[in-house]
């Protein structure tokens, strides 16, 4: 069933928000289906925050449908260095976002759909939501072998994970969101979700790796649009509302006042990296300098994304001790970030003795340190 554009409603969301009874008659249990017009992960996460903070969910539940351009999304209490290949993300310009719900790390691209079920805290019920999704999938393609596990995953053919779940509970509202793999790039997914960083010790929530598969691989006639439509229809049926999807623009301040601030906050370094629980790195690497190979041992403690303690073990006299302790001191308190370290190191170089040999050793050491970040 192809979604017709006439089903996508032009009804102003602001009207729905201000006069709750508009569009629904008193016999309905109250439900609303909205879809984001944006593919920006930060904007979409901000919409979730906004609904969670501002919408009255007492008499109405909301289903939010969204898709993102390539991004890696880590859980609230996770460590990005542990979960993904940050170097690769930077190279490929893939965004990194931290969501407010718990759970593990996922890769999003336009071949993946996201569903968020908003309810009051009392009505928070993940299993029901996932069963709804499975019912919708089976209605669309009855031969699909999909079921919900007790870990709140959806498996295809009892083997492959096609959906992961996470949730956020606040004082009065709650949401449960999940992904659904339709036609995502599995190659990029597996390469970005593999961390190259060694020697990390952390209490952050670890992700549980799983074999994944796209629904498209099982049935090439499936598209994201079809899945979204099927799920919306099932939701509409279960909540006894019209199968009408309202489009929202996450940049529109008149409909969602304060949304742009939420979007900005989700993009700050302090949120994405700074919220990483305290962790330590204990590792060593080899540096090739001219004809010799040097062993360097590094121990660092990182708290709030900043280096709290920094110990670099170098062969004696390779760098003048004063300079070496200067580097350790400067790194202390600095962000655990390649850009910060590069600019810091090159700026410090200006006040060092002007010696080419010294400069090339310094740059070599700094480049290797940066590889850890």
């Amino acid at each position, binding site marked *: 069933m192809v979604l017709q554009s006439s089903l996508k409603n032009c009804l102003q969301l602001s009207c729905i928000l201000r006069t709750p009874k508009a569009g629904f008659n008193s016999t309905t249990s109250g439900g609303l289906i909205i879809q984001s017009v944006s593919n920006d992960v930060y904007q979409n996460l901000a919409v979730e925050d906004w609904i969670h903070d501002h919408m009255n969910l007492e008499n109405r539940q909301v289903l939010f449908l969204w898709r993102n351009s390539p991004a890696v999304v880590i859980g609230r209490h996770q460590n990005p260095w542990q979960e993904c290949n940050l170097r690769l993300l930077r190279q490929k310009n893939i965004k990194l976002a931290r969501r407010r719900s718990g*759970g593990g790390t996922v890769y999003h691209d336009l071949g993946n759909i996201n569903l968020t079920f908003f309810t009051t805290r009392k009505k928070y019920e993940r299993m029901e939501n996932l069963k709804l999704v499975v019912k919708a999938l089976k209605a669309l393609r009855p031969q699909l072998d999909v079921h919900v596990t007790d870990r709140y995953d959806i498996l295809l053919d009892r083997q492959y994970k096609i959906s992961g779940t996470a949730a956020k509970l606040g004082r009065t509202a709650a949401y449960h969101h999940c992904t659904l793999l339709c036609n995502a790039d599995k190659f990029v997914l597996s390469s970005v979700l593999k961390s190259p960083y060694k020697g990390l010790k952390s209490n952050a929530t670890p992700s549980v790796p799983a074999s994944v598969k796209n629904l498209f691989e099982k049935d090439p006639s499936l598209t994201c649009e079809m899945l979204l439509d099927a799920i919306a229809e099932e939701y509409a049926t279960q909540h006894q509302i019209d199968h009408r999807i309202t489009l929202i623009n996450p940049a529109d301040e008149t409909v969602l006042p304060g949304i742009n601030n939420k979007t900005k906050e989700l993009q700050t370094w302090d949120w994405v990296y700074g919220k990483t629980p305290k962790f330590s790195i204990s590792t060593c690497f080899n540096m090739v300098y001219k004809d010799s190979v040097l062993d360097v041992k590094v121990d660092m403690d990182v708290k709030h994304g900043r280096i709290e303690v920094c110990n670099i073990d170098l062969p004696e006299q390779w760098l003048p001790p004063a300079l070496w302790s200067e580097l350790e001191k400067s790194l202390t308190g600095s962000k655990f970030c390649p850009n910060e370290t590069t600019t810091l190191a090159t700026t410090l170089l200006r006040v060092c003795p002007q010696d080419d040999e010294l400069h090339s050793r310094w740059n070599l050491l700094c480049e290797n340190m940066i590889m850890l970040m």
Partner: protein
Amino acid sequence: VCIHRVRSCSSIRFIKSKYVCVFDKSALKFSHQQRLFRTSAVSCGQIVQFKLSDIGEGITEVTVKEWYIKEGDSVSQFDSICEVQSDKASVTITSRYDGIIRKLHYNLDEIAYVGKPLVDIEIDASKGVAPEEDVVETPPMSHEEHTHQEIKGHKTLATPAVRRLAMENNIKLSEVVGTGKDNRILKEDILNYLAKQTGAILPPSPKAEIIPPLPKSETLPAAPKDKARKIPVPVSRPIVFSGKDKTEPITGFHKAMVKTMSAALKIPHFGYCDEIDLTQLVRLREELKPLAQIRGVKLSFMPFFMKAASLGLLQYPILNASLDESCQNVTYKASHNIGVAMDTEQGLIVPNVKNVQVCSVFEIASELNRLQSLGSAGQLGTNDLSGGTFTLSNIGTIGGTYAKPVILPPEVAIGALGKIQVLPRFNGKGEVFKAQIMNVSWSADHRIIDGATMARFSNLWKSYLENPASMLLDLK
């Protein structure tokens, strides 16, 4: 009703009391918390154990992931206390009380149990507000109109500070429209209400302009535009400013900059400024821009400025030198690695283009494009940021005419370029014409560079730019 008085001493254990029968059970939701009620104010606070409420789905234990408060902090009702996690769900626990945190029962990453104490809060009843006010779920025990009201079937939410402000100004909370979360009444709402009463108009505050999300009452808010157009008129009412100074340590890159700039100021600077007529260069660039575009490169004025500077440095190599720490030796650098000051989110960084002396204007432009895109992505490498020998700072892209740039050690000279302005000037025939004028401000290390050298270099650089064709004669 059992009433207990407890001294505000954190070591004394909380004594259980019976439930007060007036509880509105439907508002209780999941908690089974104990409460103390008093009929008279006591000077010391009472310690209340705030227990972890039910998470749902039959969950009995969670992991404490983050504390938002620490012992000794004061909290208001609905402030976030901590974040706990259970099986992929992250839960924000908020305070039920106003008071001071006296004890945290768990450390980070410890398992917390539903129904067991999470934190101890000392409720301070000596603020002069009746204790019923602190907890909204109870129906009004007193009939004071000021502090605790019901609007159209639901209760008003307001912090004690807001309630006090309302009381001081004899305002009924029921008549104030709340614009905060859950229709909470904020300080701004009280002030706005006051302003309407006195007939004066308040300067618009950011919060007042936000349309309240889903007002439960039918009144729609005034359009923000109206408020923005009104001119603020001074009102004789207490202006409440709750801003606080914020102190942060200087770390990382900024700490390094402090070091560098302190070293820079030790260099005896002298300045030399001049005006350049870029009329011909502007015309030339307009012609060349599309050609560069075809080759995929954005052509600005900088490549011309840099190439001209390099040609000048060939004649006056002392400007591309470096003085050692003891000021005993001058090293004349062979490469012209010209740095370009770049303004990024982090602050001022100076990547450089290597060996400008052997690069064409196009090659310089192409390299600048590469550095600019890396700079905005925060991905410049150590090689790009080190090894500079001379710097140009195009502050004119932001604004300004003349400047007093600071030399970046270990260099000995720097130039700041102002913005290009269209100004009237006289030509050789005494006629006024439209000229594109840019100002340059040079700073140089007076220990090894004298004014005459700087002036001659500047004149040469100026002549190349005022008459770009002359650059052709000397290009290598």
